[in-house]
């Protein structure tokens, strides 16, 4: 039988201490979850932090940059702003700049986007028959960014085994280590 020394602490714990270790793990997960939900509520966006996946916004944003978004109702979308939007039927959000806007009296907006590094506007990316985007497609507007940090997220998405391994090791560490 393997004698794993790091499990010795766990073997010496009574029921309450074991439950406390599990709770500790649960509290860390809950705290992370609550912070994310809190951010969602504060910014009004359903995905307040996104990672830039392609090089279509160079030289402003490069692949792997982290973007902070807000989606408040009272901020109008104007030409020249960088928005993150989702095309109907696709789940990956796109980060591009607003090129043209049509605005009605009642505040209803139709706008066209284009990536800084692309040669043409985004009409080719939109749904079949769709020529303009609307407010409901917007995930948020970029307010700030941190360069390079998002590369970890890209790596974890490209190699899911790496992600699961990291999460598993972290979880194990929290469960076994006392405080």
């Amino acid at each position, binding site marked *: 039988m393997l004698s794993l020394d790091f499990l010795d602490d766990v073997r010496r714990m009574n029921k309450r201490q074991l439950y*406390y270790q599990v*709770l500790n793990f649960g509290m860390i997960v*809950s705290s992370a*979850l609550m912070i994310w*939900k809190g951010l969602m*509520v504060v910014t009004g966006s359903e995905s307040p932090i996104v990672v830039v996946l392609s090089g279509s916004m160079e030289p402003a944003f490069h692949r792997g940059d982290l973007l902070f978004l807000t989606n408040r109702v009272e901020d109008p979308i104007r030409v020249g702003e960088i928005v993150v939007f989702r095309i109907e039927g696709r789940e990956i959000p796109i980060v591009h700049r607003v090129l043209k806007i049509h605005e009605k009296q009642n505040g209803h907006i139709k706008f066209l986007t284009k990536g800084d590094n692309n040669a043409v506007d985004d009409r080719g990316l939109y749904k079949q028959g769709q020529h303009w985007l609307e407010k409901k497609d917007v995930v948020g507007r970029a307010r700030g960014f941190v360069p390079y940090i998002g590369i970890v997220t890209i790596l974890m998405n490209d190699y899911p085994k790496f992600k699961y391994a990291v999460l598993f090791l972290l979880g194990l560490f929290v469960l076994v280590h006392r405080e």
Partner: protein
Amino acid sequence: MAAAGQGGRSGGGGGSSGAGGGSSCGTGSGRSGLLDKWKIDDKPVKIDKWDGSAVKNSLDDSAKKVLLEKYKYVENFGLIDGRLTICTISCFFAIVALIWDYMHPFPESKPVLALCVISYPLFILSMFVCFPLNLIRTYFVMMGILTIYTSYKEKSIFLVAHRKDPTGMDPDDIWQLSSSLKRFDDKYTLKLTFISGRTKQQREAEFTRSIAKFFDHSGTLVMDAYEPEISRLHDSLATERKIK
């Protein structure tokens, strides 16, 4: 003769000779054998001597073991259970928030009322339409309460035990153990508090020693050096009681 000689020679291998004895006499217990192999209460405590929190935890656990086993006190779980309950409720809030957000497009009135009744026994709050915001605020309030609870009320107390009065008439005496070990420091302070059940007065005694006194170079806790300290602490409080 040879067996006795061998047992005497292997002074450091106390564990191995114990295991040899166990395997020879434990023939019938197959089912509980696995649980016995898992629990290692009798094995000497060995930890990483450079890990401050492991050192403190092992010293605390051993002090607890001495008080509970040698003096046969009964541990009172009220303090620990309180902390566990608050943690559990906070996690419950988080899970509810997660599920609620997943189902958010659906009609909201009834679940809101039901959740009010179940999830706020500790606060007297009422929920309004902006349900998600309230739930998240409540979670952070609970975390704040937990922090205050652990830092003020508990005072790093890790054992509350009581001694049942032999006559059965007077309320129990309470013994409390609390300890502290600063980060990257080697001075460990153990404080024993005695609260008399009858007179309700409180007496305490403490000692501060370097952890090097209790651990050997490989990180094993030497109970022979630690236990007399605990006993001395305990007896100093117990004899005062007798004199008064």
